[in-house]
């Protein structure tokens, strides 16, 4: 039962839970107590003495942020002694704090400025020489340190310790010489290092990319979301004179609390890249050349129309994107279905049937064990990685990582290193152990004991390379802690995952690496689904959308992406519209297939590897340059709001699609009463979407607001299912297996175009285990040739035991062309070039 205690603060009485601090009790009464080092999301340490208050019967003043209330306690926060002490504390801080506010980036949003203004004295009595320490000392590529401005509140130290568990900062030396630093000035490497900039109450830690770019009060601040991974972290985009200058974390306890990863914080500046496309391009004499919008749209519309008419509508295909907003994706499939007349609509990274979203980005907090099935959240969704770390640090959550590459968070548990493509077998071995563990009580146990009899640890160890001891430890974590959270990636086999849930409860979810995979699916960017999920073979749904879109819709299922690409070569697909998807860097078959098309239109912000193959390229706005909604990896609906106008000559993707229809139908028809393509804003498209998609019916831009909207989802009951695991067999001459994934700073679009991320971008690097390098005479830094049956690429080797022997690992965008299929481990050979 909750114990309440009664306290009196400034004459007002309040009952609060035992264990509450004076500061929090005062907050409940609306009594403000000034603080410095205190930060609600960090452990209080009472270092700055700003929150000192008078407590009856206690000697001296007490720190309100660390002193717990007691029954009958009488507190005064505003006595002359308290006020004078605060002034004294501020005066002390200012004796050593340089008054370089005019050249300090923190000026205008500085806690010290604000506190001195509110509580400080007016005149400084300090006439002596100030203490001098290092100024402008970079701590890595993102954080600049000014030691003189530091007031030693230790917020940055505590954050790195308590959230990402990367205690890279600490206080060195003592007394007046104390400085916050890294070990011998090494660069910060925490993937979440940028948060210390937001946390710093003064200008001691500032952002290198934002340095001297603007004064805080000049910024136009737009609440929005990050679209650089599937987590959809809430942030504020700050712009000056239509230039997006920085992103800072924005509070949302259900998504990112208030933190950002360094990719999201610093990567948004890709919109300012000098490689942005600012004019449509048309291929003339084999070269892409600038053209006007009217020219390009008319040409694209006419060519697609011609091709569809001479053959049939089904030779046209539309590729949407998990990077594009719901509005753009919705219009793209509407264009394909209602204007062209085909269901050939799909996108790369579409969640497979049976895939489920996470219950929340914060789901790790509710898990006993986080099981990573061949995924590394640090690359796929860094904020999920942060929540795993937080869960491990505060709740003792364990991590069981299954896969060929060791994720950082496996330090909170065990890494079951196995050869690529054998993850399901390793999971089967865990099921084998759990089905025979007396701590596990579940009706499914008997069935599973039978189904898993072929997956005894020693047998699986032999077939996969995993260690028996690690398997036993992982099974022990699972049996002891229960409620696993299984995170899986694109190619996952869900049957053994379901079995694990049937044994232990918990949840499983697809760690969608792109910002809008679930949204694109919900918008009907799928060959067999309308917006909302109804089948294209469902006559009722077809009628209803046909009426809404004023068109006769095709009853035939369309081609899925892989079939579209395969069909390119055979002339089954002859024209394609690709919106904001760099297929060539993601899909093995794309480069070859797209070259054989008669006509390719690409809409994107950059001249991507895909756009380079196009006949017409139409430049589109980034998510921060238009309005749009996204559905994150927990199917939370959130708005990316317009922070700046797009560069001159650039249009939002949704408008480009509508304009393409215009160009085909002629302006007059569009203005006509029956036109369904007359959109002035993204909000209008959203209103149309809500009419056709039941789950969104109640939703408007206003109700989504800045916090987003999470539809209720009923937990589904999991039935155990039998499964069979196939072990990949290496063909003659291809002794190694290539696994592809995503790095924290991937060279994928759009992060590859960010100037701030440029120094840390993952290069064309291949991770090789020293054992595999030895016989081939490969050293770190050597150029190596990795070849599969599909082709070969040259990469730089890096020797590491982060990968298992027999496996080489690279970023997807470097090796997409080699893979047998997306998300599929591929047999390769490796040699020095």
């Amino acid at each position, binding site marked *: 039962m909750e114990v309440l205690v009664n306290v009196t603060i400034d004459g007002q009485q309040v009952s609060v839970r035992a264990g509450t601090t004076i500061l929090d009790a005062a907050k409940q009464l609306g009594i403000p107590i000034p603080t410095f080092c205190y930060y609600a999301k960090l452990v209080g340490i009472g270092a700055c003495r700003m929150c000192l208050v008078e407590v009856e019967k206690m000697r001296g003043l007490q720190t309100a942020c660390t002193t717990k209330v007691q029954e009958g306690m009488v507190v005064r926060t505003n006595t002359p002694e308290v006020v004078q002490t605060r002034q004294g504390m501020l005066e002390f801080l200012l004796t050593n704090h340089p008054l370089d506010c005019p050249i300090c980036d923190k000026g205008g949003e500085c806690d010290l400025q604000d506190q001195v203004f509110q509580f400080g004295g007016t005149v400084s009595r300090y006439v002596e020489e100030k203490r001098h320490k290092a100024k402008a000392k970079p701590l890595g590529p993102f954080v600049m340190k000014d030691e003189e401005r530091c007031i030693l509140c230790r917020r940055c130290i505590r954050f790195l310790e308590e959230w990402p568990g990367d*205690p*890279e900062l*600490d*206080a*060195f030396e*003592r007394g007046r010489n104390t400085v916050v*630093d890294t*070990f011998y000035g090494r660069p910060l490497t925490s993937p979440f290092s940028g948060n210390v900039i937001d946390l710093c109450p003064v200008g001691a830690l500032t952002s290198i990319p934002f340095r001297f770019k603007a004064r805080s009060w000049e910024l136009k601040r737009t609440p929005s979301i990050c679209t650089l991974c599937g987590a959809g972290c809430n942030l504020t985009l700050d712009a000056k004179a239509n230039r997006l200058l920085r992103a800072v974390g924005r509070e949302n306890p259900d998504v990112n609390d208030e933190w950002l990863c360094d990719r999201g914080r610093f990567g948004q500046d890709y919109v300012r890249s000098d490689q942005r496309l600012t004019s449509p391009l048309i291929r003339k004499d084999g070269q892409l050349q600038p053209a006007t919008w009217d020219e390009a749209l008319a040409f694209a519309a006419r060519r697609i129309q011609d091709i569809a008419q001479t053959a049939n509508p089904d030779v046209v295909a539309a590729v949407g994107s998990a990077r594009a907003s719901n509005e753009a994706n919705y219009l793209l499939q509407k264009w394909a279905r209602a204007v062209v007349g085909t269901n050939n609509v799909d996108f790369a990274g579409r969640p497979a049937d049976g895939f489920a979203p996470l219950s929340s980005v914060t789901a790790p907090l509710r898990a006993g064990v986080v099981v990573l099935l061949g995924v590394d959240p640090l690359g796929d969704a860094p904020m999920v990685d942060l929540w795993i770390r937080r869960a491990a640090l505060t709740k003792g959550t364990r991590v069981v990582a299954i896969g060929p590459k060791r994720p950082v968070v496996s330090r909170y548990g065990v890494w079951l290193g196995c050869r690529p493509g054998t993850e399901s077998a390793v999971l089967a071995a865990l099921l084998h152990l759990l089905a025979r563990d007396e701590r596990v009580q579940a009706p499914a146990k008997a069935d599973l004991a039978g189904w898993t009899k072929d997956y005894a640890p020693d047998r699986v160890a032999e077939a996969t390379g995993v260690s028996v001891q690690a398997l036993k430890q992982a099974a022990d974590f699972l049996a002891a802690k229960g409620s696993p959270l299984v995170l899986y990636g694109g190619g996952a086999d869900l049957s053994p995952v379901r079995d694990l849930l049937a044994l232990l409860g918990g949840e499983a979810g697809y760690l969608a690496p792109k910002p809008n995979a679930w949204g694109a699916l919900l918008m009907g960017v799928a060959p067999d689904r309308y917006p909302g999920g109804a089948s294209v073979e469902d006559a009722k749904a077809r009628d209803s959308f046909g009426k809404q879109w004023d068109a006769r819709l095709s009853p035939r299922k369309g081609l899925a992406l892989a079939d579209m690409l395969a069909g390119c070569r055979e002339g089954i697909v002859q024209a394609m519209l690709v919106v904001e998807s760099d297929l060539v860097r993601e899909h093995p078959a794309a480069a070859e297939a797209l070259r054989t098309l008669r006509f390719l239109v690409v809409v994107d912000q950059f001249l991507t590897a895909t756009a380079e193959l196009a006949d017409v390229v139409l430049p589109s706005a980034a998510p921060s340059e238009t309005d749009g909604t996204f559905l994150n990896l927990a199917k939370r609906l959130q708005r990316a709001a317009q922070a700046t106008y797009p560069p001159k000559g650039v249009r939002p993707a949704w408008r480009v699609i509508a304009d393409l229809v215009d160009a085909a139908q002629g302006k007059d028809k569009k203005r006509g009463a029956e036109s369904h393509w007359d959109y002035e804003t993204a909000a209008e498209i959203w209103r149309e979407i809500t009419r056709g998609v039941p789950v969104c019916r109640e939703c408007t831009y206003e109700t989504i607001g800045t916090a987003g909207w999470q539809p209720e989802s009923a937990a589904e009951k999991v039935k155990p299912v039998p499964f069979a695991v196939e072990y990949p067999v290496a063909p003659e001459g291809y002794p190694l297996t290539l696994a592809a994934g995503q790095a924290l700073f991937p060279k994928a679009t759009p992060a590859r175009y960010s100037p701030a991320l440029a120094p840390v971008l993952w290069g064309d690097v291949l991770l090789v285990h020293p054992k595999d390098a030895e016989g081939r005479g490969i050293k770190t830094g050597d150029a190596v040739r990795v070849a599969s049956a599909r082709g070969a690429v040259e990469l730089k080797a890096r020797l590491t035991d982060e990968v298992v022997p027999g496996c080489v690992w690279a970023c997807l965008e470097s090796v997409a062309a080699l893979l047998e299929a997306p998300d599929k481990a591929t047999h390769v050979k490796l040699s020095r070039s």
Partner: protein
Amino acid sequence: MLSDKAKSEIQQLKARYPHPNSALLPALALAQKEHGWLSPEVLEEVAEVMGLSPAQVGSVASFYTMFNRRPVGKYLVQVCTNVACSLLGAEHIVEHLKRKLGINVGETTPDGLFTLLEVECLGSCGTAPVMQVNDTYYENLTAEKIDQILAELRRR
């Protein structure tokens, strides 16, 4: 490199306290005893054995003045300059040592024999002025006594 013996002693120290982190000070003392000073490499090794980050270990090592974060001579000469010793002429003792060794406070002689430091109270005010050379106290110091001590140390 920290010896295996030191590493296993640190492991034992960790078990001695309610919280293993409490073993950090004795662990650092152990490492310093073995190496004479705490180099970045040694600090990192201690961090690894302790399960702490290099920053956390470096922070503690830099707080305490008795941990040497630079190489010191074979003989670490620490002269007390606190109140009692100062009243009895500690500053002359320091001056004499500086002259005799040819170095300033904080420096090491080129032959690597002596490092000279000023320290706070050594807790032997009754026999001031006092200096400590490695683990030995030299009391009631005079210039002559220092000459003898240095000569004796040089002979060893």
